């Protein structure tokens, strides 16, 4: 009797478990996309607005504007289709910030130069004037016999340049008494022919933002 009852109980349990498995199996016949947000992280996409948003130039604006400028320059025949490749100075020496926002101009210019240099792949050559002193010292070391001449050969002088980037960031804004601010930002880029002063390429990036003015840019 005991055995019979135990056997019945076991059979019942097995049957229940089997039913559960069948039911579960029926639910998982097709793998679904888990359409949910990911684990929160401090890292944010440089292409999209971040946690803190104001009315100024932010990461996504810098990424977007430099990307657009870089691609536009690469499509300009005077800059990207010349033989021999033109030499360009691209630094922040003549790039001015006249806007109401505090901004490190090198963030824009460095991204533009780096991206352009990689993109150009020799179609444009970039001359560093920031490294002029460093280069001059090394040239002297070679010429005074302190070091050997290296392996790439000497040049008569440091490289001259054909074009140089200039630009300006300007802004206008309207402010309401309750602290809401509306700012228009214009970032203008120009490439100047360093022999005759002609502007051989120009483009601008503009946007307008309105928000409570509670963001401090540093």
């Amino acid at each position, binding site marked *: 009797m005991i055995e019979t009852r135990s056997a019945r109980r076991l059979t019942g349990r097995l049957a229940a478990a089997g039913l559960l498995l069948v039911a579960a199996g029926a639910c998982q016949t097709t793998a679904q996309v888990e359409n949910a947000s990911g684990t929160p992280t401090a890292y944010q996409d440089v292409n999209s607005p971040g946690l803190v948003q104001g009315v100024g130039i932010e990461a996504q604006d810098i990424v977007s504007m430099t990307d657009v400028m870089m691609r536009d320059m690469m499509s300009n025949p005077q800059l990207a289709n010349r*033989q*021999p*490749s033109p030499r360009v100075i691209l630094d922040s*020496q003549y790039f001015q910030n006249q806007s109401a926002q505090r901004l490190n101009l090198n963030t824009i210019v460095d991204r533009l130069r780096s991206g352009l240099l990689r993109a150009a*792949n*020799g*179609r444009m050559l970039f001359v560093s*004037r*920031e490294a*002029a*002193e460093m*280069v*001059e010292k090394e040239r002297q070391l070679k*010429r005074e*016999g302190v070091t*050997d*001449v290296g*392996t*790439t*050969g*000497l*040049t*008569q*002088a*440091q*490289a*001259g340049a054909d074009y140089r980037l200039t630009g300006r960031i300007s802004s206008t804004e309207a402010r309401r008494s309750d602290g809401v601010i509306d700012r228009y930002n214009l970032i203008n880029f120009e490439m100047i022919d360093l022999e005759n002063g002609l502007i051989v390429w120009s483009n601008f990036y503009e946007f307008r933002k309105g928000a409570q003015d509670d963001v401090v840019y540093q």
Partner: protein
Amino acid sequence: MRVRRFGVVAPAVAGLTALAALALLAGPAAAQSTDVSDPSLYRDGQPQVLTAPPQGPAEGALDEGAVGAAFSAAYEAEGAPRIAVFWNRAFSDRLSQWTALTRAVASEQGRITGTLFDTENNALIQGNETAQVEVLTPESARAGFETERADMAFESAYVTPIQANGARIIDRATVMRLTQSEMRNDEGLTYRPDAQLVETDALINYADLIAEILMVRDPEADLGAAFRVQVKDVRTGELVITFLSRGEAPARTGARREWVATGSGFQPRADKAPTPEDVARRLAFETMQRLAGRWGV
């Protein structure tokens, strides 16, 4: 693209090959030590480098050789006058070195009443005596440069080119001492010394011209000072030349600038601020140029 990359690499490779060939021919020791003008060291296909124009004289710069020669000729023609240089010490209109601080006058008077020679007359007798307190206030040099060294350097740098062009320069202190020693009476005693008088006598006896350079404050000048130069004839008092100058070389307009590599690119080399010696030398040549012009040679 590929062509371009090859174009960049190829000259370097060619240069290296040339170097290697040179090394094989001349031996390793010769290859390691070569001259910077060796063309095989340089990359091929590089843009040309222009030769800088020769450094010409700046506009308004003095041709020291020509000025010196003109001065020498004029100086000789003028009879080689001896020149005493007064650096920052005016040959003023003060007559004596002694200054009277106070002056006291004591007066007395008396009256005699009576008959004198049967004539009744009144005689008034008056007398007075004057006493004054005098102090010796030697006329000192005007404030010059901040350091004595700079003063000395200026004076030397002014005198040297004039002397080098044949002029005879008289030292004020020496001739004054000589004059003082000559001013003795029969008993061998020196008269009361008065530097002003001694100076004048000294100049009359030992110099023909006084070149007086006075320093005046000029905030816009590189040295912060301008200089008035006057050359006077000791015997006649004639003012031979007078001019005010900062003694600065003119800006190098149109001349080649020098460039220096910096962290922000190539910057024009800042013009070196002139030293007192530079200014003095320039003033000396300006003096010579004007004297030569005045003497008409």
